[in-house]
């Protein structure tokens, strides 16, 4: 399946009047400018604005704290990437457990159902607190004590439950004839899943999984409640020391710098996926 990469320049089509050709662009640009100017006027004229400006948008403070926040942001992003890899694999295993039929696989299926119900039903923040403060307090020998480790594990645990459901929707969406054909050829349930169903299911859910990845990219900041010195924590430390909140803006900018390209990439993949489906249906 190849997507058409370029089509010849269009030569036909209705000729637009000048008004129809340029009108929309002019009007939308103008309206954006007006709204921005109005907001600007309202905000800057408010009585508290000079104070707020000094507290939240102090450029010197933002630059001053930048190296530390950037270092913390590095921790955010490493936790993000490692979690993504673990979630992608673990959630797939859960989804496989859940979709296996027959008495042999009942324990695995029940485990997956209970796991998904439990961890999808709990707020991520609560899990981070429970894992991060609770488990190290047990002082079980041999287990890591780092709150970074347990916080990351809490995120993985929670997000895997969602990702497993995404995978499962992909598995359910594969046409039932595929499984029947695999069975009729003599493939076992597991062989059918691995060779026939999963390759199609995973391809179908890539856009949805990427959406989860974008959500996780900013949720990793939850680890700051455990005292992990990530971007948010570093910003808070600076705030506590200087009573200036501009450091939070630095952290906010860094997160946006990472999440916006990721969101655009997700959009692009979603669009590509839709084109593929339309062509397949075509």
């Amino acid at each position, binding site marked *: *399946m190849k997507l058409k990469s370029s089509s010849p320049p269009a030569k036909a089509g209705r000729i637009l009047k000048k008004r129809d050709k340029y009108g929309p662009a002019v009007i939308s640009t103008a309206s954006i400018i007006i709204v921005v100017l109005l907001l600007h006027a309202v905000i800057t004229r408010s009585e508290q604005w000079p104070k707020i400006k000094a507290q939240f948008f102090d450029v010197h403070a933002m630059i001053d704290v930048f190296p530390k926040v950037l270092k913390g942001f590095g921790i955010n992003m490493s936790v993000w990437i490692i979690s993504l890899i673990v979630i992608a694999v673990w959630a797939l295993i859960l989804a496989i457990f859940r979709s296996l039929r027959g008495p042999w696989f009942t324990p695995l299926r029940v485990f997956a159902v209970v796991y998904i119900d439990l961890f999808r039903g709990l707020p991520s923040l609560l899990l981070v607190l429970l894992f991060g403060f609770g488990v190290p307090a047990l002082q079980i020998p041999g287990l890591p004590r780092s709150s970074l480790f347990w916080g990351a594990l809490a995120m993985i645990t929670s997000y895997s439950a969602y990702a497993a459901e995404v995978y499962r929707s992909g598995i359910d969406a594969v*046409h039932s*004839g*595929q499984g*029947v*054909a*695999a*069975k*009729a*050829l*003599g*493939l*076992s349930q597991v*062989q059918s899943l691995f*060779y*026939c169903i999963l*390759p*199609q299911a995973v*391809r179908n859910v890539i856009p949805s999984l990427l959406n989860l990845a974008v959500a996780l990219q900013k949720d990793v900041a939850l680890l700051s409640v455990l005292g992990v010195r990530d971007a948010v924590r570093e910003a808070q430390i600076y705030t506590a020391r200087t009573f200036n909140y501009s450091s939070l803006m630095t952290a906010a900018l860094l997160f946006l710098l990472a999440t916006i390209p990721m969101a655009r990439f997700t959009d692009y993949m979603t669009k590509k996926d839709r084109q593929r489906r339309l062509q*397949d249906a075509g």
Partner: protein
Amino acid sequence: MYKIEIENLTKYYGDKLVLDNVTLRVRNHEVVVLIGASGSGKSTLLRCVNDLVPFDSGSIKLDGVSIYDPDFEIKDLYKRIGIVFQSYNLFPHMTVLDNITLAPRKVHKVPKTESEEYAKELLALFGLEQFSESYPEQLSGGQQQRVAIVRAMANRPDVLLLDEVTAALDPELIGDVLKVIKDLKKRGMTMLIVTHEMGFARDVADRVCFLDGGKILEEAPPDKLFSSPENPRTKQFLQRIIEAGRL
């Protein structure tokens, strides 16, 4: 000795009786065609034969052994009976060659080179050799269905079940698929066929069975069944088909 013996087969979907005490025997190298209106139970009967659909009472034997016999390995059943579906059901993420060699390699542990050689031989037999590296969606419906037949043949089955294999095809593509099936008949393949193509049924069948309401109402050689049917329901069914211009 019969190849397939279906005896007193009864099957319910929930409360609905879909197969009512059906008995049908197929000899080796024989081609039996099942005809009848939609919902008459012919596709269900076909799917019972290779255990894709469980039945409630009666028995199905392959070479005299019940397919529910604990010693009859399910892998062996699927190897000996191939099936082709209306909607082809090829695996879209695999090349034609991988579609065909998947079961021989993974289920029956035939070495890769050997299974690929046989697959190419079969493809060449049906004029499809140039498509071995193509993906299913790059082929026309008729080509896909022929690949599906080759895939079913790759396990070297004794029996082939064909479930309305031309129903989803453009009229101009049906001929190629029917030619392949006639070719298989010449090679002595035992086949149980469900079809709405009455002309084809007449050509290829050794025996035609008319199903209605889950029962075989009439069973006869094609010349007899199509020219002088005895059962009034058969007459009515064929009359409608003639009126629709399909015989």
